């Protein structure tokens, strides 16, 4: 990949505080009322994410994963329970979490650099420093030299890298990713997983990563939260014993396969997710 050397020059590394809690999801429920029917999306979810941890959330589609992320950002209030981000209860959006969506969501009228600095503009942070930081991050995600390009000149994978840079550009210590690589082809996806691991370890962020690919979750995460179908509940949280930094070859490890199988077993009947295509890398 293009800019792997960028990590050394990154000026925004933070070292996670061991033992500090980044995110607490405390008994959170979410019921959407739609006319006279209601959708029970989340049912008494509780979760704790430590500072600097990489946590993956897997579950069948429609089980409320995206809803959970929206609650964490404060875009909507939960119908029950509370959420705490770095010690402060979430009551409204505060601009202290970074988000990456499934689609890049870049604004076509802004250059790549301007897209990455959008949070700087909105949060009214120091523009000159923001641009500096955006350049570093673009190098980190392998997009050095594309600052002046427009989004429609970049491939899907490159656009998603820009979206990641945008989520990192303001000092939000918590990064939320909602199936960020779901729209990418298998090869690009593997590359992005490797790079995300590198970016995560270089930046020291806390990451909550939603996916419906079980191998992707096992490859990336320290812990994997397995959710049930609607209403979404936490079925189990599994620790991932595989050491860092992981390589694609680690997916051949027996431990890797065992963990994948265990999660698949938990998801049981409703596994419309991460289905094997017979190959080793089944995403």
């Amino acid at each position: 990949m293009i800019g792997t050397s960028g990590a050394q020059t990154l000026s925004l590394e933070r070292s996670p505080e061991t033992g500090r809690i980044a995110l607490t999801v405390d008994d959170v429920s979410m019921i959407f009322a739609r006319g006279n029917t209601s959708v029970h999306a989340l049912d008494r979810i509780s979760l704790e994410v430590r500072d600097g941890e990489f946590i993956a959330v897997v579950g069948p589609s429609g089980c409320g994963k995206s809803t959970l992320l929206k609650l964490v950002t404060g875009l909507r209030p939960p119908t029950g329970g509370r959420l705490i981000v770095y010690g402060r209860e979430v009551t409204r959006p505060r601009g202290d979490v970074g988000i990456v969506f499934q689609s890049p969501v870049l604004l076509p009228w802004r250059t790549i650099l301007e897209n990455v600095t959008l949070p700087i503009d909105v949060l009214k942070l120091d523009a000159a420093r923001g641009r500096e930081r955006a350049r570093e991050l673009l190098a980190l995600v392998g997009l050095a030299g594309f600052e002046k390009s427009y989004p429609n000149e970049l491939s899907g994978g490159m656009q998603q890298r820009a979206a990641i840079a945008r989520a990192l550009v303001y000092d939000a210590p918590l990064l939320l990713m909602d199936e960020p690589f779901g729209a990418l082809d298998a090869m690009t996806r593997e590359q992005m997983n490797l790079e995300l691991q590198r970016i995560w370890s270089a930046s020291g962020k806390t990451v909550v990563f939603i996916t419906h690919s079980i191998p992707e979750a096992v490859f990336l995460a320290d812990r994997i939260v397995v959710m049930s179908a609607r209403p979404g509940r936490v079925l189990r949280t599994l620790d991932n014993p595989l050491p860092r930094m992981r390589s694609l070859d680690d997916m051949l490890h027996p431990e890797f396969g065992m963990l994948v199988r265990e999660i698949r077993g938990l998801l049981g009947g409703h596994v419309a997710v991460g289905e094997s295509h017979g190959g080793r890398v089944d995403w």
Partner: protein
Amino acid sequence: MAGVLTGEGDPRAASSALPRWNTVVLWSRYGLPLTVFVVLMGAWEATIRYFEVPGYLVPPPSAIVRALWSGLMSGLYLTHAVVTATEALVGFVIGSCLGLTIGMIVVVFPTMERIVYPYIVALQTVPKVAIAPLMVVWFGFGLTSKILVVGLVSLFPVLVNVIAGLRAIDQDRLDLLGALSASRWQIFRYLRFPNALPFIFAGLNTAIVFAVIGAIVGEFVGANQGIGFLILQANYQLDIAGAFSLFVILSIMGVSLHASLRWLQRRCVFWMASSEPVGGGH
């Protein structure tokens, strides 16, 4: 408007490959249409001469060219074209600005919508040119009555498109800004307005066509100058070649107004690949 977004022009303009100017391209782009035009005119001229169609029914192209030439040389067409263009342009600018402003207010302040929208819908269905006679009664034979008619007909396509454009926002984009705790104004500035630009230009493109129609209709109803006034005069005198030559003037006016707008559109909405605007006309 372009300055609000970025200072830079189209990045693709430089990189897009220029077409190769070989003879085939030249022929298919200019030669062929020109040939077809000449053949059509020739056929028209020949038909009229052969069947001896009287000039006061359908004039031959040669007569139209003669009328056009004398109208241009005497300066008559220019003086009156300036009048019509002024009415169309001033009315267009007033109407579009009003449409833009009302549209933005309606979208940004939802309570205003409940007050204003019923009138918009009601007026939308009325053919706006129908009030032209009233305008002449109220404001006389001069420019004002025409400018008001033009303003009214160009207001609606812009208004409807502004509202549609400001509303047609992807939920993910709203969430992106929402999660950054963006204010209503910031969402407008960074998202809604640029997002609405292609729609606004779709509205403006319709409005500019309506503007010329509005000016002509206004002049038909009551005026003592302008191209519409000249067309009426030519008709009364059964000077059909003269009327046709005025149509030529009108279409030149329409095409150049439309082209200028397209030029502006390419600058402001540089990120849209296609040259055709999104959304319906009105």
